């Protein structure tokens, strides 16, 4: 009952966010919101940007890549020089080169894969200036790309797709900062810690032991961690830590925050291309897949843990509680983790490693589909649009016209770019997994043997390749090998999709628009939603079925046998 009410509340809030936040974002990106121009204008002057000047896709892409490169270098430098920088009450040393590389790439690519425990590795300065800043700007970059591809569809015969600097600045100032500010206060009120005072040392007189309780400016980082689908929290325990996620309310708010922008962007998309129904169709496909995997995971986790059953524990009321946060229960934990893996957040409040095989499979599924249901901030929308283009191409032929999507003819160049964007992630993840399972540097870091160990490696590279950042755990990935390979994985997973998407945006914007008629393949109908779901499932299944067979499926059919 409690779970049903939670779901209902979430659906209602998300519906409101879809309509209101979605419309607000239209105003922001069409330049009709001005209430913060007193912050905005000086920033443009400082950056030397003329906000009225739009860019073609090549300049837009170049700006994005330069910005990201500078971000990586800056973050890397801050982490490497941590010991010399202020706000370091624990006197933590510099972050090691390989880890600093992995972490810098991780936060710049909106992945937030963490090969470290925040409380014992990062100074407050690193948390605030290096990592939280990227938690704001990396989703802004994602939104910029999403808006660019939307403009590609909306414009006709245009050489320009917008100004990257304006899109990023407006994303941060008008969308991410105000929402984060308000919700951080709520989190503080709920008990989330916000302090620069360093760890608290407590002497437990009763038991005669001393205890150090790490603290940090948590609430400010926590909200943007969810809102920006970042996922990287200050503590290793992430969403299971009572300072990060103090109450049932913050648990639900966290889920709401991480879904809000990806969901609302579908409305923004619909409005900007001239038909809210088009955005609704994309959202419907996202929802169907999200609900499906949530149902699989909840059903699997509410059943018994097969390993425990095999060990003779016949009666397991309450389902598979192993590794779950007791405060939130099975359903609350599963909902959080599904929401976090189906967006590209990757924050967790329970241990994925301890899920049942099918539950673990459901967590992998969101990523195997490319983290598009609803996916990361911006990235979810622009990536699912690639699948939509493939769907339109195949489906559109079946109505006897050369295919078109939103009035744009889908021809050789569009198919080439969309196929490239769709394929880059699976190829990268599969090849890197194959390398990792084949060499000692890869297999040595794993806790478990057999299919569980395989899942741990596969999950790590799948998560980084999708810029998700959630971890299956069980793998000690803070090795030179995993830090370096993971960084490569994240970079390809991010920019290997962004560059084709922006090129596509340029190609589409330059095209004329074909008016719709009764002979047009409609992309705002249940039929299209069904086809899009089918194409996403099929591409995900066809590419990852063998890998999934060797991990969760073997375990499922082994009925709790350990390897």
């Amino acid at each position: 009952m409690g779970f049903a009410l939670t779901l209902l509340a979430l659906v209602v809030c998300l519906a409101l966010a879809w309509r209101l936040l979605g419309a607000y974002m239209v105003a922001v990106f069409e330049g009709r919101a001005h209430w913060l121009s007193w912050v905005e204008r000086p920033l443009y002057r400082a950056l030397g940007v003329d906000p009225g000047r739009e860019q073609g896709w090549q300049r837009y892409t170049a700006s994005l890549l330069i910005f990201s490169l500078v971000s990586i270098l800056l973050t890397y430098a801050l982490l490497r020089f941590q010991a010399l920088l202020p706000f370091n009450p624990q006197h933590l040393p510099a972050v090691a080169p390989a880890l600093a590389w992995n972490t810098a790439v991780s936060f710049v690519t909106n992945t937030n894969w963490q090969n470290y425990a925040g409380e014992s590795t990062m100074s407050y300065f690193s948390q605030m200036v290096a990592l939280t800043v990227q938690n704001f700007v990396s989703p802004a970059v994602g939104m910029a790309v999403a808006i660019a591809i939307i403009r590609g569809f909306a414009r006709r015969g245009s050489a320009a797709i917008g100004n990257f600097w304006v899109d990023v600045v407006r994303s941060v100032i008008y969308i991410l900062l105000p929402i984060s500010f308000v919700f951080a206060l709520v989190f503080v009120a709920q008990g989330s810690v916000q302090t620069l005072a360093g760890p608290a040392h407590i002497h437990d007189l009763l038991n005669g032991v001393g205890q150090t309780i790490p603290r940090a400016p948590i609430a400010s980082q926590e909200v943007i961690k969810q809102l920006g689908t970042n996922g990287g929290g200050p503590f290793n325990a992430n969403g299971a830590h009572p300072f990060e996620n103090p109450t049932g309310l913050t648990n639900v708010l966290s889920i709401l925050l991480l879904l809000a922008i990806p969901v609302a962007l579908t409305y923004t998309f619909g409005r900007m291309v001239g038909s809210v129904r088009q955005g609704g169709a994309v959202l419907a496909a996202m929802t169907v897949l999200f609900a499906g995997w949530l149902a699989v995971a909840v059903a699997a986790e509410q059943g018994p843990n097969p390993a425990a059953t095999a060990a003779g524990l016949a009666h397991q009321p309450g389902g598979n509680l192993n590794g779950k946060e007791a405060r939130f229960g099975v359903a609350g934990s599963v909902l959080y983790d599904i929401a976090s893996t189906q967006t590209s957040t990757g924050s967790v409040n329970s241990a994925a490693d301890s899920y049942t095989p099918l539950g673990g499979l459901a967590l992998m599924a969101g990523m195997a589909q490319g983290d598009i249901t609803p996916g990361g901030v911006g990235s979810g929308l622009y990536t699912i649009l690639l699948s939509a283009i493939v769907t339109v191409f195949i489906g559109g032929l079946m109505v006897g016209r050369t295919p078109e999507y939103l009035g744009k003819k889908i021809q050789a160049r569009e198919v080439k770019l969309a196929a490239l964007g769709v394929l880059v992630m699976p190829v990268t993840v599969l090849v890197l997994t194959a390398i990792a399972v084949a060499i000692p540097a890869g297999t040595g870091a794993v806790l478990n043997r057999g299919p569980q160990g395989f899942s741990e490696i596969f999950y790590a590279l799948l998560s980084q390749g999708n810029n998700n950042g959630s971890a299956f755990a069980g793998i000690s990935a803070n090795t030179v090998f995993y830090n370096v390979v993971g960084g490569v994985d994240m970079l390809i997973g991010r920019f290997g999709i962004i560059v084709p998407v922006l090129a596509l945006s340029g190609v589409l914007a330059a095209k004329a628009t074909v008016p719709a008629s009764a002979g047009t393949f409609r992309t705002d109908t249940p039929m299209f939603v069904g086809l899009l779901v089918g194409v996403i499932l099929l591409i995900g299944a066809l590419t990852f079925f063998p890998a999934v067979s060797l991990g969760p499926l073997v375990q499922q059919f082994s009925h709790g046998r350990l390897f």
Partner: protein
Amino acid sequence: MAQGGHGVVRSRSLLDGAILGPAAIDAGRKLDPRVQLRNPVMFVVLAGTVISAAEALAHPSAFAWQITIWLALTVLFANFAEALAEGRGKAQADSLRRTRGDTLARRLGADGQEVQIPASQLRRGDRVVCGPGDVVPSDGEIVAGVASIDESAITGESAPVIRESGGDRSAVTGGTRVLSDRIEVRITAEPGQTFLDRMIRLVEGAQRQKTPNEIALTILLAALTLIFVPVVVVLPPFAGYAHGRVSVVVLIGLLVCLIPTTVGALLSAIGIAGMDRLVQRNVLAMSGRAVEAAGDVSTLLLDKTGTITLGNRMASAFLPVGGHTESELADAAQLASLADETPEGRSIVVLAKSHFNLRERELSPPHRFVPFSAQTRMSGLDVGNRRIRKGATSAVRHFIEAAGGRAPADLDELADRIARAGSTPLAVADGGEVLGIVELKDVVKSGITERFAQLRAMGIRTVMITGDNPLTAAAIAAEAGVDDFLAEATPETKMALIRTEQAKGQLVAMMGDGTNDAPALAQADVGVAMNTGTAAAKEAGNMVDLDSNPTKLIDIVEIGKQLLITRGALTTFSIANDVAKYFAIIPALFASTYPQLEALNVMRLHSPASAVLSAVIFNALIIVALIPLALRGVRFRPSSAASLLRRNVLVYGMGGLILPFLGIKLIDLFLTATRLA
């Protein structure tokens, strides 16, 4: 099929022995890797076959050899499908070549002397002379004379046509035969570039280039092939992690099963067959691009006469004025039309006969027929002192006023009403009196309204083009059910209409024949020139209709759509097939590593070897099974995009998902029963 029964472009059955044999030989010839490289999907299969064969040689086993043979057959089947599609065109090209033969031309020198030279040496601008029995040596334009010409070599139509210098009927085509009279022809084509040459190259497919949509689809298929290479290549290390081994032959079998071989194998056959279907309807598309564009057409410009209405106006009513009776009018109208051989004139006689039982009669002399002239705009008959005339209302009014009569008051109003209804009023006068008006009606073809409704459901707007005044045009447009019309059309207004439609993003198709149609034909996305038309028109259009049948435009659009649907349907089918193949091969692949995965063997296939072999055999045989569909095209019934999609997703999507489960299981049962695996 309109004219399939005769001529060079007769249809051939799918399984014509004369085509099957050479196609089988061609299939082997196409194994050349350079040929295969054009098709990335089949190239991967070929490469896989070679690796599999090497593996079978290194570690011989019945299983490895069987897989290798079936992989080789997969490539051969694909080649066979293409060769079969090409074979039909080649047979047509051969018979066209025979008609060309080695013609001699009588070239006129500067001094007017005739010189005999081979037709192949004629250049553009040369003048030649053709007499009765001569084959026209090359394409050209008649500059002097008139002749009846047998064009059956090109069109298949045996009735001779008249060609004369000047005007829109001056073009002659190389390879046709002069039956009577003598003409002087100025050659308009360079050697090798004649209509016949181009036609031969087209049906032969020698110049075939991939069309834009075909290129886009090939890219998608290449991408789907590319992704499965790493999917399969990573499996040995994946299995190695669990201390398992996987067989190279099985991996190649899996790869070939996963990549979209079905559509990859049939893609070029689909394209060639699409062109061929047009040829069978006596339409020559100058490029595959035009066929594809035909499927996309959203605005269809149709000439009123011949397409929407029967060619001629027919008398439909006698409407008397000024107190005269209907039979008086009918009598006078019939007399005035007795000598009138125009279809309109004949129809008046017919109507008078059927309504008033007025038979054609012998007229007592003295009588004199007055033929129609552009000055008087009337025709009629003088018999005794009666002077009977019929013609345009204004001309007839002139006529009676000159004879001292007065037109009745209701004449103009009646004439107006008739014009508004889309008919033509023809006034009839006897001496100084107007008897009434014969209504000449444009008869809309039966069934055309339904056809337009279908087109509308398909999202195609029809625009009627007519030289009539707006009133008449509007009435006919309403009766025929077209969406719009262009009245008092001139080449300029037609051109302007095409430009506006295109500016709105519409793709426009039109048909034309005259030289002044040429710019519009060139501007239209699909321009179909009638074969009876001028060389300029044929040059400008991207298709030629040998039957010169204006209704053909609708067929062309349907063929274009059918071509695209066939591609989409087979792509969907091919991809959906993969699901069953995974369930067959994955448990077999890891059978020794993880026997638990036997749970995925939902088809309960007999053994790992039989499972892999069954999947590979199914994958090969499905290509053969679908060749007829690829050549014929999927069933197409004009309907809305939504219902087309629903049907095709159900048949080819769902069918593609389910069929291989059944097929693989059946093959497995057969292999097990025959102990092949």
